[in-house]
Structures are given as C-alpha cells and as structure tokens.
C-alpha cells in the first residue's frame, strides 16, 4: 500500500502546476473566453510539449503513462488551474482508437500526443441523457465503407477536433447493448454539420448532425458496448480528478477570502459559523480525494468492481461539488457572484462536471441497483 506519488508523477505534477499557473493567468483566461475555440493554443502546445498528452497513453500505445493515477495527476492539476483545454476528450476517444484501431488508425495517436490533432468522442444523443446503450444514430454498410446518419448532442471539442470517434448502431434496438459500433470520422467530412457553441464549463461543445457521413469502422462490428463503458469509466476518472482540482481551487479562493475580507472590524474567517462550514467543506473534499483514488485504483479491475467504483465516485464527486460550489459562493457573498472574480469560472466548471457521464442521482441509483444485483 502506497499513497505517495511515484517520482515521475511527482515531477509531472510539479511541472504541470507551474506551467499552468504561468500560462493560464487571468488575461489568458479572458482571451479564451472571448475567443472562438474555448481554449488557448499556447497552453495546448505547451502541454503537448511537456508530454502531458503522452501521459494519458501507455507505452504500448506510444505514450508513457496511461494508468489511473496518471489520469488523476494530470486532471487534478488541470482542474486546479481551471483549464479548458480539451484534454479530457482524448481519454475516451484516444483510448478507443488505441484499444480498437487497426495499425493504420493507431498511427493517429502519434499526432495526438504531439498535439497536432485534437479528438472528440461523439456518443450521447438528444434524449439519451446518461444511458450508454441508448444510441439511435445508424451506420449503413456499402461494401467496405460505412455511412452514418443521426444526431449527437453536446459533444465537447467537436468543433475543434480533427478526428471524431462516433458511436452508431449496426444492429439491435435503440437501447440494446448489442449492435453498437464505433467509427472514426473526419471533422470536415461531407454531410457532417457541426454547430459549435460555448459551454457553461468555459470550453466549447457542439451539436452534430450526420447525414450519410463517410466513416471508418473502429474495431469489430456490433461489439463496442463493453469498450464504450470502459472508455467512459476512464473519462469519468479523469473528470472526477479534474473536479477534485476545481474543488481545491474553490477551497483556496474561499480560505484566502475568509482571511482577507473584514466585516464588523475583523476577518470574517474569525466567525465561528464560517469556520465550521469551512471545516465541513474540507472534510468533504478529503472524501472526494479518496473517491478519486478509489476509482483510479480500480480502472484495471474486473468490470463489476470497476463500474461499482465509477458510480460510487461520480455520485460522491457530484454531491461534494454542489456543496463546495454553493458554500464557496455563499461564504464569498456578492463578490462570489461576479464573472470577473476567479470563482465564477471555477464554480461553473465544477458544477458542469455533474452533467457529464451521469449525475449524482443517476449514479446513486445505479450503485444501489448494482449492489442489489450482486
């Protein structure tokens, strides 16, 4: 049993924290918010150069990390900095390419690690909510080629990606696990309409309308569900770690504020009610940290164990995130409500983590059902 980071991960963490603090200052963040991509190209290039993208892949895949605790180190730091660079999309999309792709398709990973190609994972659809098997988009086979028709909803970074991993149905009914396949689609393919927009999390996402879009099959036909679940588990781990970093950012802002702001002649952090609420928040953030460790440490476990931890962690993260956001804003008072103050972006981004891969209520029910079935 060992809870310290390895030396390599410690170095990655230190370097990443320094780099992000330097690169993503207030001005850079504002430029991102006003720009039309939702991220900073400078930051992206720097992250690639530091090897941060490579840390998301195993050595076999061409990277030098890829384990659960690599994800947690990287994404906790991204969260702490409130970074909007869409690295998280690489976890499921890149993971699926590396896991299912042909050698030719896997060659793409090199570009991804180098930072020259961004990826997106288009799976959810209007009305599918968080159900992983609910896919209506259809893939039609014509000889050796496939064409996809359907809609994909709220796909982060789809408008910025060069390649998009798209799920579609080659068989089965709309909510069946069987009959799901994965495809690789060029972002500029004919028949693909991408409506790009800003998100509450600070980055960009898009609605995809596919009308007979030519696509390459990724792996076998009709057997993709298990891998989609696997990729989503890893993405959930990354998102949870990012949420933890965002919580730490909230905590720091709030603690600093309680020390600096005075009311009735003394720092408001001297008021016992605020002290106790701050303590409650810290206790819960510590819970969140352990939940992230639990999930990252079980990503390689058997499916049932892994998924139990997915739901346990995501439930807890969602619940703690709500507490941290609401308490941080409340303890700040009015200033915590203003766009200009750092907390606004952090709080929005942290809140939005509950709207990906299943929210707290969804995973509480899922955990309970898994326990009852065991």
């Amino acid at each position: 049993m060992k809870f310290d980071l390895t030396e390599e991960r410690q170095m990655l963490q230190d370097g990443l924290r320094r780099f992000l603090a330097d690169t993503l200052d207030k001005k850079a963040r504002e430029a991102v918010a006003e720009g039309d991509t939702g991220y900073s190209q400078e930051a992206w290039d720097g992250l690639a150069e530091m090897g941060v993208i490579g840390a998301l892949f195993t050595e076999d895949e061409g990277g030098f990390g890829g384990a659960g605790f690599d994800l947690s180190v990287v994404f906790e730091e991204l969260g702490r900095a409130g970074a909007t660079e869409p690295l998280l999309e690489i976890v499921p999309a890149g993971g699926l390419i590396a896991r299912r792709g042909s050698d030719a398709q896997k060659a793409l990973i090199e570009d991804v690690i180098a930072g020259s190609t961004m990826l997106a994972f288009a799976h959810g659809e209007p009305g599918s909510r968080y159900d992983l098997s609910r896919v209506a988009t259809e893939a039609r086979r014509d000889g050796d080629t496939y064409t996809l028709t359907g809609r994909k909803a709220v796909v982060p970074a789809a408008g910025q990606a060069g390649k998009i991993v798209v799920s579609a149905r080659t068989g089965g009914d709309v909510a069946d696990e069987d009959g799901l396949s994965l495809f690789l689609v060029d972002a500029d393919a004919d028949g693909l309409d991408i409506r790009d927009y800003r998100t509450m999390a600070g980055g960009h996402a898009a609605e995809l309308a596919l009308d007979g879009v030519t696509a390459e099959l990724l792996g076998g036909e009709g057997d993709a569900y298990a891998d989609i679940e696997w990729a989503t588990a890893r993405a959930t781990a990354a998102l949870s770690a990012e949420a933890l970093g965002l919580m730490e950012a909230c905590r720091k802002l709030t603690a600093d504020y309680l020390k600096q702001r005075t009311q009735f002649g003394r720092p408001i952090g001297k008021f016992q009610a605020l002290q106790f609420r701050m303590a409650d928040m810290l206790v819960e953030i510590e819970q969140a940290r352990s939940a992230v460790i639990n999930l990252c440490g079980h990503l390689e476990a058997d499916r049932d164990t892994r998924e139990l931890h997915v739901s346990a962690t995501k439930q807890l993260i969602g619940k703690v995130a709500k507490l941290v956001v609401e308490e941080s804003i409340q303890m700040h008072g009015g200033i915590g409500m203003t766009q200009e103050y750092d907390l606004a972006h952090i709080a929005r981004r942290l809140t939005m983590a509950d709207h990906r891969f299943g929210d707290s209520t969804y995973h509480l029910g899922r955990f309970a059902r898994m326990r009852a079935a065991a």
Partner: protein
Amino acid sequence: MDLSYTDEQNAFRAEVRAFLDEKLPERLSDKVRLRHELTKEDHEEWHAILNERGWLAGNWPKKYGGTGWDAVQRHIFEEETTAAHAPRIVPFGINMLGPVLQQFGSEDQKDYWLPRILNGDDWWCQGYSEPGAGSDLASLKCEAKRDGDHYVVNGQKTWTTLGQHANMIFCLVRTSKEGKPQEGISFLLIDMNDPGVEVRPIVLIDGGAEVNEVWFKDVRVPVENLVGEENKGWTYAKYLLTHERTNIAGVGFANAALENLKRIARLEHSHGRPLIEDPLFAAKVAEVEIALMAMATTNLRVVSAAAEGQAPGAESSMLKIKGTVIRQEINALTREAVGPYAMPFVSEALEPGSNVEPVGPDYALPAAATYFNNRKLSIYGGSNEVQKTIISKAILEL
C-alpha cells in the same frame, strides 16, 4: 383555525384572474415563462397596464394612489400574477422608495415623486451596498458634503440592480463621521443624469448584467433631495428593509418554478421512462414540494397576522431562509433535470430580440443560468447568515 379564504377574498381572486386573462399580453407572459430577459420597455408596459387599473402599488394606501389592500389581498394578487407568468413589479420605486417617502418625506417630496413613480416617469434604483460594506451597511463610506444648498457626493455604490435603466437613485450616504458608524448616514435622492455619475455593469456568474457599480465624482445634489433629517438615514433604511421583506418567502416564484421543474421532468427521459418516474429524482422533487407546502402555510400565517395588524418578528427571517433555500433547491433540480443540455451557454438566445436558436430543448437553455443567478437569493436582502443571527438573538436573547 380556518385554512379557507373568505367569500370576499375568493371574489377578489376571481377579479384578479379575470384582469390577467384580459390584460396581460401573451408576449410578456411567454417571455417570463421561458425566462427570457425583459427589456425596459416590457417592464414599463406592464407597469402602465397595472397603473391604469389602479393596481400598481399594492402596498400603498389609497390616498397616495395605492390599492389599500391588506396583506391577504396582496398575497392573492402575488399568487395569481406569478401563476400567470406576469412580469414582477420592479420594486425600487413601488416597494422601496415609496413607503419611505410616505413615512418620512416632506409634503413636497410626496407630491412630486409619488405620482411620478406610478406614472413611470422615473426609473429608480437603490444605492445601499458598497464594496466592503454588504451585510455590514453601517460601515459605508460614500460621502456627501454640504456645500451651500447642495450636497457634493463622492464615492461608489455596488450591486445596483437594473441601474442601467434608471434615471434616479436613492442612496445612503455618509454626512458625518462622528458618533457610532450608523449615526452619520443620510438618505439622498440623486439624479443619475447629473455630471459625475457613472454606471458600469457587473457581469455575473450566469453571464447576465443586471447589476451595476455606480460611481459618484463631485456630484451636486440639491438639499431638497434629502429625505427626512440629516444623519437619520439609518432609521429610514431599516424601515425600508422591513418593507422590502413583504413577500420575502417568494411562494409564488417557488410554485411557478416547481411547476416548470415538473413539466421538464415529465418531458425528459431516463432509461426510456419519464424522469419524473425515476424513484430517486421523483423523491427529490417530492421532498422540495413537501417543504414548499409547509413554507407556504407559514407564509400565510405571517400574512394573515399582518392583515390583522401584527408586525412579523423572527418569522420574516425564517421565511427568508426557507424561501430562498427552497427556490435554490428547485433551481438545482431543474438544472439536474435537463441533463447534458445544461451545458450549452448560448446566452444570446435569452437576450431581448434575439434570433439565435437555443441548443437543445427551449426549457433547458435558462436552467443552469437561473441556478447560478439565484445563488444571490441567499446573499442579498440580508444574507441568510444575517437572518440566522436575527433569529438566534430573538430566541436565545444572548
């Protein structure tokens, strides 16, 4: 004990409902229902419609052009207008300044300003908070120095809601630094078109800009714009805060928000079934509805006592806390209900006159923004922490 309304009260409700049927423009109620931003003109239009019927100033006595309603009538009016998705009445002139002028203003001030409020000649805003003086109003710094028959005002106000529309602002200003901090404060009416007044929008966490900073640089205000006595502004401010607290519970808003939440939960699906049939989500909705049912009755108890002339005590603070917490919880559940479509931040689609199409269902668009915006409910108007202090002081007598 009798939970039912009297015949007169029921007749009044019918009258309000008929009026709304006839006079509330659908264009406005649609906007309110979909939580689109209202323009200044929208507000003015609705005020004029109400004023024509004599129903704009529900809390003013008849002699000033108000309705003379008792608390129960005001409550019924509030229930019906929120249920019909009428715009809320902009409170600054009607609910805040009006009662202060009626109580403490000179005859000249009453004769001049009160009709202008009803007629919509002035749009008022409130200059109370300052940076560093939120819940701790007594520490405010914005200064007014007497210079002949003018005051010269220098300083800054903040959190000025809808200040961008206003031509007048009522301010608490410091006219003396002697004595206790709250003793040197005066209540001043300032023309925002005067040179030296500058309004800067504050963009909030939801992307909206409904609040502002207001800066004063050597602004000259005629002494006849002082309300009541110099250095007695603290008394008037406290009086105003009491009046601001009518409808503090926001039962009507909560009911409307709950109906909206339930509608969304019937339209959204999880595991192929309406979200409202998901036992855990349904239980969360049920829990907040049950709390609201109780809170609505607490509100009626306070309203009913007020109609009989009793002054509400710590109950107001309880209503403020519970009312805001319930509304915020409904907002949180609404955000949760819309699922991934809480993420798009296409605020342009909510702006007046926008042709931008929303992303996802139209009900999803304002869900997250409303959640973030309404975090303010437990912060402003006396934060919930201030309310808890009031309650515990009243009960523990410590």
